[in-house]
């Protein structure tokens, strides 16, 4: 049993020091659709994300219901008719950073992340570009990419085709802080 105690002593700080983990609880996501009749924009600030710089892993989760539209009827239709947020409450992404990053070195790192983008219950393997910025012990991520409605089985009826673009531009940004065990 003594041995066990020693092992625990040796390993416990090691487990603690694995804080290459950075978290952000206020990920900002903006979706933008440009169509002949009207441009539509909605913003969510309730996404959350974890990034593990040692393992080069990134995870995002954005609650669909947290997107705020200017027109409340649009927001209702977005949830009810298009994204079906009762059935599929979250948009998620989990991927690996392909470039190597030195967490101890400040700077801007342009990266590409490959992984599964899950929107409307349909997973799609994507490689998404972004920028990771390391400065003053904090990490900032920004990324801009497009999501095709048909890739995720989001039907747009012919009748409203003029109002909604087939390709939606998504901008994600967040400032992360080092995760400390509570």
């Amino acid at each position: 049993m003594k041995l066990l105690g020693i092992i625990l002593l040796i390993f416990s700080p090691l487990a603690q020091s694995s804080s290459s983990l950075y978290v952000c609880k206020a990920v900002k996501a903006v979706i933008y659709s440009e169509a002949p009749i009207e441009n539509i924009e909605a913003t969510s600030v309730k996404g959350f994300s974890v990034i593990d710089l040692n393992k080069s892993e990134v995870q995002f989760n954005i609650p669909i219901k947290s997107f705020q539209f200017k027109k409340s009827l649009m927001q209702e239709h977005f949830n009810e008719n298009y994204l079906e947020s009762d059935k599929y409450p979250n948009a998620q992404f989990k991927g690996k950073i392909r470039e190597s990053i030195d967490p101890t070195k400040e700077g801007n790192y342009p990266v590409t992340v490959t992984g599964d983008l899950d929107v409307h219950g349909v997973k799609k393997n994507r490689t998404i570009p972004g920028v990771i910025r390391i400065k003053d012990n904090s990490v900032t991520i920004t990324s801009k990419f497009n999501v095709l409605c048909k890739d995720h089985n989001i039907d747009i009826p012919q009748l409203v085709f003029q109002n909604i673009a087939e390709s939606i531009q998504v901008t994600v940004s967040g400032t992360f802080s080092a995760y400390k065990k509570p």
Partner: protein
Amino acid sequence: MKKYLLSLLLLCLFFSATAQSDSLMQAMSGNEKEPVSATFKSSRLILSQTTTMVKKHDLDFKVAHRFGDIGGTDGGSKMLWGLDNSSDIYIDFEYGLSDKLNIGFGRSKYEQLLDLQLKYALLQQTTNNGAPISVALLAKAGFTPYKVVTNVFDDYMNRFSYLGQAILARKFSSNFSLQVSPTLLLRSVVPAGDEKTLFALGAAARYKFTKRFGIVADCYHPFSNYRSNSTSTNFYDPLGLGIEIETGGHVFTMNFVNAKAIVENNFLPNSTSSWGKGQYRFGFTISRMFTLHH
């Protein structure tokens, strides 16, 4: 034994490290209570109003129409199954003073009734059953501006009627919503023997087959001795069945209903048409939502 423990411990450490970002993600996805939206597509079904509110600074313009009897003595092919007649036409404006308070103004063909109403969203159903139902309170004043030949209604003050209603609704699933509405109707002057204070209970349900198409059923029962005992005139409970189609900013309801009138102040006391006698009619409601702010 110790070796075994050691490997177990290492295994635990290994797993705890790999699953760390996953468990962190899990921890952050605290089950937040979210308001349940779109219990009904529109603030009106066939007979009933719903808990669905017109949002702040939106204007809901509605036109509702009821044709004549399809069958019976007033229907049939001569009247093109009621399409030659209109038993009621209702034009209604409903405006969102806030997300929780709506004001409405409407005019009926039936007795030329003008009505002004306030609707307040008292409770909003939330996910995780924080609030199991939505509740809206409704107060409406009705006024018939034109003289009726029967002398008793000549005085202005005698032509007012007041409606108070609580609407209790629950969205059971994304497809099925149900509501119950206890209702009180006060009329200033009534025919001999009739109750000035009329209590009624409404019930309505919507089932969606697709995201934009569903069926609705809607009925009311007034609790009235005068109505159940009346022999000279027969009264029937208003009952409507219909379909609902939503296309972006419009909601269309097409229905069959026995009641001739569209507004509660009219159809609760005066429904004398019977489904059994073919005295039901085709009707529709068109709702168009305008956003008045940018």
